[in-house]
């Protein structure tokens, strides 16, 4: 196998001619490997601006492609296709179709901030990953990821009551994502917790589940945050050239 960067030359573009004789010389097989020409004409010139308009993406223009982000990335170590440096390159050059090839994994950024720590240009790649995942969803290229559904459930609870109750988050998240709550490992975990849970704490947890914990003096803050989020949502949709959903 010749050495080449997987993301630039794709397996399906490598053409090998099994039977090939040139000027009486047999060059069949490996000797006549060609790379199918690939012409990119379809650029989205607004792509960088669109990502920069979403929260987290503001500083993408600072990138000079050193690759410190990918080099330090936690998720890249598990999956080499997860490549922040490459995605920033695609966004800045407007190669939307190429970017879309990885649409299903970009949301997997785990927010460990190793990239942000390593970046010499203060691009905040972690924010760029979140903005890009958000862009995919707003544009309708991907459905809302499980991570987004979790974030939404969490944020709704915080805005409504000022606090979260973990049990309710877990139950509602599994319901939203259509997963059964009684997974082997969760049941095992619950069993191990229950085995040692002191009565007082069990009572407190049951109490919290029944009467949602609330922050006092929260109503006006809740209202103010909701208004702000709606206003921002409008801005983002406008920046991406989307009609506001009614």
């Amino acid at each position: 196998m010749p050495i080449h960067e997987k993301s630039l030359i794709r397996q399906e573009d490598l053409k090998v001619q099994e039977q090939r004789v040139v000027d009486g010389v047999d060059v069949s097989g490996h000797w006549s490997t060609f790379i199918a020409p690939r012409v990119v004409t379809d650029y989205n010139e607004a792509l960088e601006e669109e990502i920069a308009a979403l929260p987290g993406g503001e500083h993408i223009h600072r990138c000079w492609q050193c690759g410190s982000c990918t080099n330090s990335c936690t998720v890249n170590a598990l999956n080499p296709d997860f490549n922040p440096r490459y995605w920033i390159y695609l966004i800045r050059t407007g190669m939307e179709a190429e970017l879309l090839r990885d649409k299903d994994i970009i949301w997997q950024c785990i927010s460990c901030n190793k990239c942000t720590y390593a970046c010499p240009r203060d691009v905040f790649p972690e924010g760029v990953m979140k903005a890009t995942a958000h862009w995919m969803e707003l544009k309708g290229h991907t459905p809302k990821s499980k991570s987004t559904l979790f974030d939404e459930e969490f944020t709704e609870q915080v805005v409504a009551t000022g606090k979260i109750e973990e049990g309710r988050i877990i139950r509602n998240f599994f319901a939203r994502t259509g997963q059964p709550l009684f997974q082997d490992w969760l049941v095992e975990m619950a069993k191990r917790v229950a085995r040692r849970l002191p009565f007082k704490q069990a009572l407190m947890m049951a109490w919290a589940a029944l009467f949602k914990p609330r922050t006092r003096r929260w109503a006006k803050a809740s209202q103010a945050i909701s208004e702000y989020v709606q206003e921002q949502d409008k801005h983002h949709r406008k920046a991406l050239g989307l009609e506001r959903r009614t």
Partner: protein
Amino acid sequence: MKKNYQTVAYYPGCALEGTGHAYNASTRAVGKALGLALDEVRDWNCCGAMEVKNIDPKVQTYLSSRVMAIAANEMKAKVVMAPCNGCYHNLKKAEHDLAHDVVSRETVERISKKAGHETYRAGSLETIHALDWIKHGVGEEELKRRLKGSLKGLRVANYYGCMYTRPRHIFPEKDQGGQSESTSQPHFMDDLLAAAGAVNVDFPLKTACCGGAHTLSDSDTSTRLVLNLLRAAEAAGAEVIATECPTCHSGLELHQVRAEKVLGEKTTVKMLYFTQLLGVALGVSPRRLSIHENVSDGIALLKEKSIA
């Protein structure tokens, strides 16, 4: 570099009222044993954790700023202590953004005004972690004087996670040499536990990620990351992983179970909050430190080594 943390505003946060209950109990117990008073922030709200910033980072800044506004403006506190890495990180980030970013400042001012409270002004409060609280408020020397027992050479891997050190720019007091904390090789927990008689093993993944942000939305990734941490700790010879964050702690426990159930990978290293370990050495009863609430049961190990 001893600091006056005799009485600090205390921001436990949501996790410490739920899955991190043991961390809350042990932090309070250790504070009591060391003569440090905690004054809980009145009517506090969630800091935004790792989720709200993905909806909008400025909302997260506001949420954290409200907590600081109450501590600074209403309670006239000078210092707020958060034992949870997420809370600590978010308060630090809000402090940084409010000091350096005009848009954040204006947004927070606008929301605070509508919410009907005074805006938090950057610079009016010092945010510290429970580690700073004991390291600088008490120090190793005094800690040693107050010990009633010892961790007796218990082999510990100190795990700090992501949010205690990254990104560097929100922690201007770190990496300043001398007694300051390091963002690449944090050592406050190592120092305190060594003073209490533990042996810190050479653990290379102190600041690696446990996958806490996606613990339920991308469980397979989290399990692989946690399994890596557990294996590395065991390979380094650790009997216990000491934690200082409720998300890391419950993540390690949850995915230790999940790795066993889903991947058939069993690990035996135990997780204990550093406050539980310090508490034991300070003579606090394991029950008051809520060690029995941990899913990975450290009590048998501590008994076997006649530490507790």
